[in-house]
């Protein structure tokens, strides 16, 4: 199989940009990466197939993404007041399927947070559905399957 190098590079650049925006809390720019009907999901049950009918850690449509960003930026939430920047890296990028309308990508998604000196790793497998848009993409779906999702998490003051 020939991997389309150009597509791979475009996808890789888009996902790096998305990750970097979140690490730098450029939330307003991040919101613009989305299609209006896009969904952002952090599941509890990583094996669920119907997230709409399942309880998740987060299941954000456009309205909830907007509210989430307002909360993180608003300065009213004590948990966000002390939050330090996150560091994330993406690897094992794999284009699962690609058509003119949609590209589905999987990758390893590693996030580190610093909770007042306590460095916490959050390894995950992430899945993105991207919709080509001029020379880049828009997000139709971002699904972050945290390794610890079904055991227990700690409280989170950022966006995965």
């Amino acid at each position, binding site marked *: 199989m020939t991997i389309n190098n150009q597509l791979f590079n475009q996808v890789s650049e888009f996902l790096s940009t998305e990750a970097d925006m979140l690490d730098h809390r450029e939330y307003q720019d991040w919101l613009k990466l989305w299609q209006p009907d896009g969904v952002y999901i952090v599941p509890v049950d990583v094996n669920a197939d119907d997230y709409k009918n399942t*309880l998740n850690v987060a299941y954000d449509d456009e309205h909830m993404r907007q509210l989430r960003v307002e*909360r993180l930026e608003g300065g009213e*939430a004590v*948990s*966000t007041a002390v939050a330090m920047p996150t560091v994330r890296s993406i690897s094992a990028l794999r284009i699962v399927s690609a058509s003119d309308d949609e590209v589905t990508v999987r990758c390893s998604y590693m996030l580190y947070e610093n909770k007042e000196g306590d460095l916490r790793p959050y390894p995950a497998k992430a899945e993105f559905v991207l919709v080509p848009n001029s020379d880049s993409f828009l997000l139709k779906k971002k699904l972050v399957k945290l390794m610890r999702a079904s055991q227990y*998490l700690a409280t989170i003051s950022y966006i995965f």
Partner: protein
Amino acid sequence: MNKPIDKEAIAQRAADLVLEDRVHKDLYSDPDIFEEELDKVFNNTWVWVAHESEVSGKNNYKTAKIGRQPVIVVRERKGGINVLLNRCRHRGATVCEGNAGKTKAFTCPYHGWGYGLDGSLRALPKPEEYENLMDKSEFGLVKLRHESYQGMIFATLSDDIEPLEDFLGGAKKWIDLFMKQGAGYPLKTLGEQRFRFPGNWKIQLENTTDAYHFPIVHKSFLSSMDETSAEIFDFLDGDGFVEDLGNGHSVMVMIPELVDLEEKLDDPIPERFADLATELAAEGHSDEEVRRLVRAVGGSGFNLNLFPNISFSMAFFRNLVPISAQETEIHHIAIGGEGAPDAYNQKRMRLHEHFQGPMGFGTPDDGEAWERVQRGSMAGDDGWIMVNRGMSRMKTSADGNPQGAVCSETGMRAAYQQYKKQMAS
């Protein structure tokens, strides 16, 4: 022979650290006290382990904990429920892992002893070496006493405590009201979120009966709601109250209009549920059904706090699991109606995700406050935590119970007095 005496002294010290109007910070961090709490509190009362819908089908099980002890709640093929200690009677391995699942038997992974869902030891490899040594009927998984009320299953390690219904007492009326959230359908759980925080379990126990923090800690959540809804949650000046229900239980009524979800069905549809009402009506549900569902979808207007580990918290169950003196695991369990329209249960799950759990708009701020209580409790020699709010303005409720203002610390005092009683026993 010193040990038992020391243990009693530690438990008595913990009991002495609870006064009527204050409790001592050592109760949050002393590991010796924590060990005694497991014994005196968790091993000596009714502990919530499951809602029946979590093991709704035959051969379904879930794992849970009584204090630190792992147990299995399982439904047999014939429909009966058993609560079993999760410990093989050979050399002690757990026979069941994972949060929940379905199985026909429990087979120990170490040497293959096989147990039925009633706990009985059915078979083991190479039994001849036990010839004349062991009666299989005496080596089943240990079965615990358990009783249910309104589908809530409680188990206990104690054979001589009162029946569950006596233990629940004044809380039963509130459980009945809370269960109306099925909106005419049997209540069922819709999944749960789990998280841990670095703090003592009693900090969480206090929080579910603490209305005082709501407008401060949850300011960002209130800002994320429309104005009318935010007004409803502005309840500190309203007619709410906290009532001591006995045995450490208490109820905190925040929104009196939402105490009985079967009343006020003709009230206007709240703005935040207008979309749901439209969707349900479009699916062909009658006006009456739409109103019943909309009325129940946001939950009840009160928190019922049961001592020691379960709270019926407005729209979900909060289950706490003590891990160590300074670490606690919390389960936020979503609920809905069995057979209710998908749109209803979906809305309930989305509302739950909005406030609850590790990425909710409420829980992370609660968590931050609890962590700070734990850290702050390390400071100073005068280590008293005040729980005297509202003590001089107590009334007697219609049911004859002590009642304070909605933002009083009546519920905390109730829980701590029960704690004191058990620790001193």
